[in-house]
């Protein structure tokens, strides 16, 4: 991983994150939450707290959906 990062040229090569791609969902969730709450909140000082809350909600919901899909797969494909 360190060797891969050392040979990484920003913008010209993709980041060597093939095995860690799933973690890239977190910055995207944060970005969407911050901009959404920037639009929705009446006062700017509410944004960090509200955005943190909605980020957690999105990630929790996605974990829930993933668990549901995994369970469905296990029930209908693996265990039957």
């Amino acid at each position, binding site marked *: 991983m360190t060797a891969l990062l050392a040979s990484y040229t*920003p*913008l*010209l*090569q*993709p*980041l060597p*994150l*093939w095995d860690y*791609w799933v973690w*890239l969902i977190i*910055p*995207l969730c944060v*970005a*969407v939450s*911050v*901009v*959404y709450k*920037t*639009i929705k*909140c*009446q*006062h*700017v000082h509410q*944004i960090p707290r509200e955005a943190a809350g909605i980020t957690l909600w999105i990630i929790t919901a996605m974990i829930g959906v993933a668990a549901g899909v995994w369970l469905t797969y296990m029930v209908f494909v693996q265990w039957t």
Partner: protein
Amino acid sequence: MKTQGLTLLARRIRDDRTSHLCDRVARIQYRRFMSQSSVRHLPTPLIALAGWLVPGFGYALIGERKRAIIAGTTILLTFLLGLLIGGIRVIDVPGYGPDGAKKMVTVNKAPMWKLRADVVGEIMYKPWYIAQSMNGPVNLLATWGSIIAGSGEHPVKASTARIFDIGTLYTAVAGMLNLLVIIDATYRAAHPRRDVGAGA
């Protein structure tokens, strides 16, 4: 007689003071009105254009600077992160092939640039570019960079599979978020609230 004179004098002084106070209040109100109207009464297309040129700048024009900084920084960082994750070639420009050269087709036995021959079809072939283009001039710069990087003697290859998809997703989501911000800033400019500046 003397009392009447004193009463008249007292009334005049009071009137003078009142009018002086009224003048001061009017002056303050006028100043406040002018300072607010100068930021509020900008035409909404101008707000939208400013928001497209620099993400978040539409908010700054209606006096909501902090909101502008938060939205603009987040959008630009998301776009930049997309480019860093997938490389500059995640900007998949309509009308250009994987080798960075213009796609050509034959129309009436004459060669023609595919984007010119079938503009809608070519854009629909790469619809994520529509979302990416909502990032404004920064996307035009990345478009130019992508074409340059893809052509020449040592062309940069586009990333593949998941990393390309995630890079495209980041840049496209950044553009869509900027579209939301443009719409919100334009709406706020057209419908100013009484407590405008609360977000500033």
